[in-house]
């Protein structure tokens, strides 16, 4: 594949920085500001572009495991969630299909959590399960968005995904 996505993004970034940004009128503050944000956004995309598929695979696996754990709590019945759990045993290879199924798993998870958290008997365990899964989700999301500069010094998403896949 020539040129690959990363190379194209690099070329776009260099062109904007070298040619387009300096040509903007100095008194066009809004345009100058947006040009800077475009460059920052391209840096972000280049940081994560190679890891999107892997990210979605781990997101799928984690969400499915959480849904299974929540269903395992005493007294829970959710036939739709159980059916989804069976359907998703083999994750789709295609990225849009994978993403769509993960979205349905997340919706089922949150729906079930809300039911369990409304009952004093199941609330503590439901919270504990969700909190444990949330820590891994947050680790992924913070590394995915690290180039926005809001999460401090966090590792590259490739390192995080490798560690989570290994764990």
């Amino acid at each position, binding site marked *: 594949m020539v040129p690959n996505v990363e190379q194209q993004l690099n070329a776009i970034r260099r062109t904007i920085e070298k040619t387009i940004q300096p040509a903007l009128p100095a008194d066009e503050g809004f345009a100058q500001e947006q040009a800077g*944000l475009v460059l920052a956004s391209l840096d*972000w995309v280049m940081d994560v572009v190679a890891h999107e598929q892997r990210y979605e695979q781990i997101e799928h696996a984690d969400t499915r495991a959480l849904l299974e754990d929540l269903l395992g709590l005493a007294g829970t019945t959710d036939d739709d969630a159980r059916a989804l759990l069976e359907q998703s045993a083999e994750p789709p290879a295609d990225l849009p299909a994978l993403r769509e199924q993960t979205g349905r798993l997340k919706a089922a*998870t949150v729906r079930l959590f809300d039911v369990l958290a409304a009952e004093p008997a199941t609330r503590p365990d439901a919270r504990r399960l*969700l909190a444990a*899964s949330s820590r891994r989700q947050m680790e992924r999301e913070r590394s995915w968005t690290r180039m926005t500069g*809001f*999460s401090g010094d966090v590792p590259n998403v490739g390192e995080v995904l490798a560690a989570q896949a290994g764990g």
Partner: protein
Amino acid sequence: MSRSTTLEPSVERTLDRKRARRGVVQHEAPVVSVIEERLRTFLAARINGEHAVSDLRRMAGGASKEQFTFTLEWEGRREKLVLRMDPPASLVETPRLREVEVLGALQGTLPTPVVHFATDDPDDLGAPAMVCSFIDGVVAPADAPKTASGLGTTYGPALRPRLAEQFVDHLAALHRFDWSGHELPSFQRPRPGTTDAIDWRLAHFDRMWADDAFEAHPTIALVREWLWEHRPEVDHVSIVHGDYRNGNFLFDEGDARITAILDWELTCLGDRHHDLAYVVMKDWGQVDPETGTFYCCALMPREELFARYEAASGLTVDPARIDYYVVLNLYWAAVCTIACGVRAAAERMTHLDVLQNIVSGLGVAFIHEAASLIEER
């Protein structure tokens, strides 16, 4: 735990209108000559006598509204004014008239822009909009690093103490202000000793998330459940600014005087701890590299700030409610930035497409912090 879905009517109408625009209205690059012409027509219907509009220019900065400056010659004077317009969608969608009503009520109490004209009708100027005074001042010292939307603005050791006292005193004046006799038709009036105000706020955030989120989010669900479960009652109902922090006020760099408190679009009636918790959030603050002291909003240490606020306002600071509202504020910002901002960009309804995606990183940092805080409790 009961979750109310009741919204304040003006908020609900605003969110309904935004939902109706989706898929129908996209943001188009503003043509200055077209806006100027609409502005002339708008003002001609509202000003008796001779007047003239000139020098309309787009302003940089901000994370939600489109803003322009222009010159208006009217009533025998020449005045620089600000036109503030709602894009089809943005991080925050609130009724423009709430901002207008509060700014009107607070004239003479706090330094705020004067609203000369406002409209909630998109037929007037193409979008809900307000025309207000242009106030001289800066959001940051000339030698400070420029930040997005003024987030994390710092002031340095010379300006800091002079601005800090005013910053706290203005907040105290806001919260002790007796709003009860003022016409505030865009607001519902929460009852002291109840959770009315926080119920409406949480229902508002739930609606924002339901409308704009791309997918369910387990961490958002975890924090939302905690917030509904732990809602505190309000003892004294205040006008809440909703975005009171460094970067959201102007000051004169020469005499270190705060000239205007800005960005009232999130104002509501509710618990003062909503604002106080926002002020002490670590995310806006600054650690002095020499002393290690943490300055809330890069202005004042927390205990000193609370002591001054209590003395100036005559109102108490409740640490438990501070803790609650820190989580609420983090959650609100996460909903805005992970759901609403990214949705606005995806639907091509904003003038800040790239910025809306970038600030989702702030939402991720905030919801991570909120989840960590509730786990500690």
